């Protein structure tokens, strides 16, 4: 059975907004629908029946069980376009690209949208577990007496709702606290983290200024740029911030609000198809999806340094490169999602560590260094923000545009995710 190449035709996202800001009253469905409509407008897909739309959100209301399908029904796409939800934490966006690209490669569909959305502003709030159990018992009771008996168990403290928190169920630690340990274990300096953060803001601002995002963004609710972007930030300004995570490390705490991504709202979408479908629709192909790989680490029981919560891409990457016979030198652009500056730097350090690479990755020599001039050249999550499931789509569409702008080349993507997971992928022009 022959496979086909999945083309990246283009993308669309709404500007990312810091939590409880510009999109405070927008729901996941609102943002995803607007993002799909912007994509439809850019590529003239009104009433077009696509093969499928795959999307997801990390923070989701229970009523949004069919979030993506509902967004399609609210969009200007043909309502005969099927859709499904995907959830792989921060890997969601890239995973939807892999899933749809695979279906295109296998000949099951000719076109697809891969997307992601997240809001930490319009977050689901649930009643506490005790109250939930009581209410369920009231519902189950068959008599007035039974219902009263169940209600009699109500206590004043039951009114406190459960608000979702950015923490791992198995450790109770937030993502930042996990990364603070990893950052510290790998000996990543505060200066290196601040430099990476400053570069992210500088690169993103420059990209906006030269119109790089003109074909990638559709403004939403009055926002035309990511509002986390601080074009005038500098290493000196970032150095003044106090630690936000790993405070237990005392003087050795290095992670601040400046070198960590803030909670963010936003959505992104990528249009994929076969080359033939794109040609039929008079749409140029930006790049092709080559391959993807997912990895996971046992951050609960594993080594405190080498199995950090956000270290899974470190393990997925050598498998992906080996399967495709490539090394870092074969890539023109490398996109490593900046969950925290420490995540990127610990990942790079691991790939340069001969002992680690031999023991844990089974390599004779280090996987290698990454030329910083190729890394996140148009900024990444530290500047843009990180609406969890929307980050993958942001990176794929931007990277495909970079490859198209340079005429040829290869691009590499690495995204870490909660639950000790990571997704990596290759694009080429």
């Amino acid at each position, binding site marked *: 059975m022959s496979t086909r190449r999945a083309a990246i035709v283009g993308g669309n996202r709404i500007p990312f907004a810091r939590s409880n800001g510009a999109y405070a009253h927008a729901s996941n469905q609102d943002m995803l629908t*607007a993002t799909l*409509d*912007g994509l439809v407008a850019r590529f003239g897909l009104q009433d077009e029946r696509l093969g499928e739309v795959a999307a997801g959100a990390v923070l989701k209301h229970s009523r949004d069980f069919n979030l993506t399908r509902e967004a399609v029904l609210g969009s200007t796409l043909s309502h005969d376009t099927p859709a499904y939800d995907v959830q792989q934490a921060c890997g969601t966006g890239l995973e939807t690209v892999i899933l749809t690209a695979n279906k295109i490669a296998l000949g099951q569909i000719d076109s697809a949208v891969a997307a992601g959305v997240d809001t930490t502003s319009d977050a689901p709030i649930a009643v506490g577990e005790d109250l939930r159990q009581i209410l369920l018992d009231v519902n189950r009771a068959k008599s007035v007496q039974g219902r009263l008996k169940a209600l009699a168990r109500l206590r004043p403290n039951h009114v406190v709702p459960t608000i979702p928190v950015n923490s791992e169920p198995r450790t109770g630690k937030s993502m930042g606290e996990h990364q603070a340990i990893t950052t510290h274990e790998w000996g990543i300096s505060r200066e290196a983290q601040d430099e990476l953060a400053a570069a992210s803001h500088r690169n993103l601002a420059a990209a906006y200024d030269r*119109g790089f995002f*003109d074909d990638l*963004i559709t403004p939403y609710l009055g926002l035309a740029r990511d509002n986390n972007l601080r074009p005038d930030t500098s290493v000196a300004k970032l150095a003044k911030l106090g630690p936000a995570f790993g405070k237990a490390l005392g003087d050795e705490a290095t992670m601040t609000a400046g070198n960590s991504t803030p909670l963010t709202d936003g959505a992104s979408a990528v249009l994929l198809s076969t080359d033939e479908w794109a040609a039929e629709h*008079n*749409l140029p192909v930006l790049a092709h999806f080559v391959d993807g790989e997912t990895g996971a680490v046992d951050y609960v029981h594993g080594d405190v340094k080498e199995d950090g919560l956000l270290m899974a891409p470190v393990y997925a990457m050598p498998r992906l490169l080996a399967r495709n016979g490539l090394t870092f030198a074969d890539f023109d652009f490398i996109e490593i999602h900046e969950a925290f500056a420490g995540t990127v730097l610990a990942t790079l350090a691991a790939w340069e560590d001969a002992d680690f690479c031999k023991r844990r990755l089974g390599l004779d020599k280090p996987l290698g260094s990454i030329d910083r001039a190729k890394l996140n050249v148009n900024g990444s999550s530290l500047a843009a923000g990180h609406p969890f499931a929307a980050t993958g789509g942001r990176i794929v569409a931007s990277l495909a545009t970079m490859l198209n702008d340079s005429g040829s080349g290869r691009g590499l993507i690495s995204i870490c995710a909660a639950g000790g997971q990571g997704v990596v992928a290759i694009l080429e022009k």
Partner: protein
Amino acid sequence: MSDRYLNLVNSPIGSAVASRVGLPQPAVLRRHRAGDPILPGPAVVGSASGKKAPAALVKALTAAGVEVVDSAEGSVAALILDARSVAAPADLAAVREFLQPGLRTLAASGRVLVLGTPADGVDATVDASRQALDGIVRSLAKELRRGATANLLWVQDEASLASALRFFLSGKSAYVDGQPVLLGTGTAPAPKNWDLPLAGKTALVTGAARGIGAAIAGTLARDGANVIVADLTQAGEALANVANRTGGTSLHLDVAADNAPQRLLDHLAAHTDGLDILVHNAGITRDKLLANMVPEQWDSVIAVNLASQLTINAALLASDQLSAAARVVCLSSTTGFAGNRGQTNYGATKAGVIGLVRASAAAFAVHGGSTINAVAPGFIDTEMTAKMPFATREVARRLSSLNQAGLPIDVAEAVAWLSSPGAGGVNGQTLRVCGQNLVGA
């Protein structure tokens, strides 16, 4: 926004009051709706030569579905006079004789359309008599009531006559009043389907996110064009809605940016088989008395409203992205004719556009019979004019022969006509869509 005064004087009580105290009585204009005939009733067609109306004219009208009659029996929807033979002052009496009886029976939103021969500078008597028609039509337009209009076609060549008749007699020209248009030589093929004259054409409209630009995009799409709607990235959300309503595609483009022509050419090369229709609609205002104007207010208006049109036109003509028989329509303004206090910068650009199309006509004509024209809107109800102070807006609305503001669709209809294959003989001209604005008309 709705014109409350217009609605009021068209109610039974409002109408009675307005008529007794002598207030202006704007009519609800006949505007084109899908499936409407060109005219809702018969047209009296005559000739100033004393002979019968020429067969070619009657044939063109009949082909357009117009019921042609020789004299007014009851209500008529249009009076069409072929006055091309007028060559001496005495010939003008025939114009009066033809028009007089019909005026009394002209229906609401009726049409008076006069065909003349353009002056050619050969003979003073002939030219004076021909030019006199312009004064008759402009004055008659001011005399007509109930939404009726009078316009003049200078027929140098009949190629564009069929499409001009359809435009000027139908509701598409509702807000064009007292205007002359020269129908010159040019290739003006009849479309396969007069309801879809732009079928298969690729059009690009700048400044299309809202107001007049959005209406133009919708009207070109209605007429069959594939429309690329362009506007600033900042307007992208509204722009996407326009694209999705019109079944078009959106393009974020700052027409004043240095790289705009190249970005436009790259987009056309990647996404189209060439551009057939370009509408330079993007425009800004930075109103200030000249005495107080800062350089930025001057420069930005010049850059967006005028310089961008020149550079983009030059780039398109030098590229292989502009199709043969292309149509370019530039947005001017009645401010370009009459001036406006506080708008020296804007007035400069809008008068500049009139000069631009006049001077560019020849270059476009040799590009496979392409044309370039301008449309000059008068007072149009848009989001922009809705922000004017109430009294100023109400006064401005009444300052035209039609006693009301135009709508974005009125401008869009004129743009769509000039964008159509059938208007190939119209080149280098500026058509006012202003309800015969009393200021500088």
